[in-house]
């Protein structure tokens, strides 16, 4: 189903073939060489020019000082050394990690809970699903970020509603450094619809007879959930987790719009990508921005690898 399980199975394929198999396959493999590469041509060009080329270029640039006006000058590890001592960078890491590690688990838990409620063939399912899914489609738009700015402003919707229930609040949620980040966390949680859809598809793959058998054996609902649903759904949970962690690390629009590009108040919404944008495209410190980009690759890579490593202990593959 997913790119992730596909990667894992590629690895498995390789290990399990005999020498004859491999020779056969090698012969077979050459059959469409010309056609294969012709069809692949646009993608290959894109890979080289748009992806791998820039990837390597940014590695080079990360060792230089470059402002677009003069040619890059080699500065060795200077950018990386500066990163070690850049308090705004450290703060942006703290903000981003907080954001990822709070919003992703809450979002996924909510997605799973609602998916469980919306089980097979219940009445009104398509309607509920659409309503829950809609925010995911709109959540990354500037329009919604603007709405958030109003809602969590001093006399925004949230405070108006609080006043209705008798809580007089004059907090400007987005102008208070203690709360600004949480409004963006909430925005992320609000978009739980997309992992929910994936959970729904996953739940449908679990044969009903498992539950019937468990119920015959006297298992309650909680036990069925823990011993059937969770293990059988674990690959899907894993898939959602990897995607959402990678995605959340790249969040940009909401923080940009909510703070009007500053990452404020007091850098409390200075996401890593926003800081990278400021360094690269406001200050035109392309070298420093490239070094930051590489740190991002390393962080996302390590987290993904960690996710894969830990998955051995909790993801159940039915083979």
């Amino acid at each position, binding site marked *: 189903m997913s790119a992730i399980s596909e990667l894992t199975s590629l690895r498995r394929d390789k290990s399990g073939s005999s020498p004859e198999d491999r020779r056969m396959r090698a012969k077979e493999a050459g059959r469409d060489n010309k056609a294969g590469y012709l069809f*692949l041509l646009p993608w*290959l060009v894109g890979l080289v020019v748009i992806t791998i080329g820039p990837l390597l270029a940014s590695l080079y640039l990360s060792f230089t000082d470059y402002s677009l006006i003069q040619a890059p000058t080699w500065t060795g590890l200077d950018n990386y050394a500066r990163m070690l001592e850049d308090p705004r960078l450290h703060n942006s890491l703290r903000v981003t990690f907080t954001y990822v590690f709070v919003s992703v688990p809450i979002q996924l838990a909510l997605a799973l809970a609602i998916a469980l409620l919306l089980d097979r063939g219940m009445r009104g*399912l*398509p309607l509920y699903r659409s309503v829950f899914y809609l925010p995911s489609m*709109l959540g990354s738009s500037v329009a919604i970020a*603007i709405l958030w700015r109003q809602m969590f402003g001093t006399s925004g919707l949230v405070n*108006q509603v609080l006043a209705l229930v008798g809580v007089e609040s004059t907090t400007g949620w987005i102008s208070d450094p203690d709360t600004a980040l949480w409004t963006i966390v909430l925005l992320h949680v609000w978009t739980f619809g997309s992992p929910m859809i994936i959970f729904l598809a996953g739940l449908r793959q679990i044969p009903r007879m498992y539950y019937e058998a468990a119920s015959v054996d006297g298992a309650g609902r909680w036990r069925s959930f823990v011993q059937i649903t969770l293990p059988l759904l674990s690959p899907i949970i894993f898939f959602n987790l990897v995607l959402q962690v990678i995605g959340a690390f*790249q969040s940009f629009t909401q923080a940009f719009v909510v703070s*009007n590009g500053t990452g404020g108040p007091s850098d409390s919404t200075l996401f890593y990508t926003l800081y990278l944008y400021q360094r690269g*495209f406001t200050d035109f410190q392309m070298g420093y921005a490239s070094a930051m980009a590489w740190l991002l690759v390393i962080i996302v890579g390590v987290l993904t690898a960690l996710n894969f490593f830990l998955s051995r202990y909790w993801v159940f593959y039915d083979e």
Partner: protein
Amino acid sequence: MSDLQSHSASTATSAAAGAAAGTTRGDERSPDRRSSGPGVPDGPGRGSSARARGRSLVKHLLLVAASLLMIYPLLWMIASSLRPTDVIFREPGLWVSDLYLENYAEGWYALSNPFGQYMLNSALVVTGAVVGNLVSCSLAAYAFARLQFRGRTMWFAIMLLTIMLPIHVIVVPQYILFNQLGWVNTFIPLVLPKFLATDAFFVFLMVQFIRGLPKELDEAARIDGCGHWKIFSRVIVPLMGPAIATTAVFTFLWTWSDFFTPLIYLTDPSMYTVPVALRSFLDATSGSNWGAMFAMSIVSLVPLFLAFLFGQKFLVRGIATTGGK
């Protein structure tokens, strides 16, 4: 891959994955199988039906409440776009007694260009992106799914890995490149990558889809003397309707709301796409004109909403066509 990530697309990525999952796995095609679902085995008779009904009622109440909570901000923004700004900050309800349409008129002309210009710019970019993705991704997908060539496994693995690569990693050198080519303030940086299949996610989605088509069709066409191009264009593409629709709809949705890439490449206000234009409301003198800002926000969401409705229909059709596999 640019817009997979460019607008913090964790949501978008998995949204499309969800759709893909739906397309290839017969999502909820069993409206009549009314079990009480995972973890809720049907009770064994005796009075349990009353209890089940009660439980179902509670569940629906919960879901309705949750749904309202979810969409209330959206409904409120629609209502507020029809109110004078000072009322917006007093009225948390949804009822609009008299429509204040001035917001729309004001908002339309509040920026340096009429809002229609930005809509047109976005429409151009989106059209280019959709065409680009459909052409380039389907070509690559056919190669990966059907052709036997050396290095296929390796390229395929690389393709899968690029799905996960953050766009921010390559954006700096990419900008330098496009800047030197004089492409800043053109739509080329937004559209060209789509023609080079950089949204690898869709390549993967189409590979999955093509793998599900019976190979006998290709074989038959081959026996009739068709080459790969003919097999691709006459046999495979006509059968790819659902995958094409899914790709088109998601490319539309993501490109329309993409903010990061146009923010970087488009600095001339007459070239702004809708999200960048909307954002510039915050800087413009009209920054406190919430009514106008909301009105244009709603305008910007209309195409998304339509694509969402349209897309849902296609998803269901995709599900019906491919069946539970």
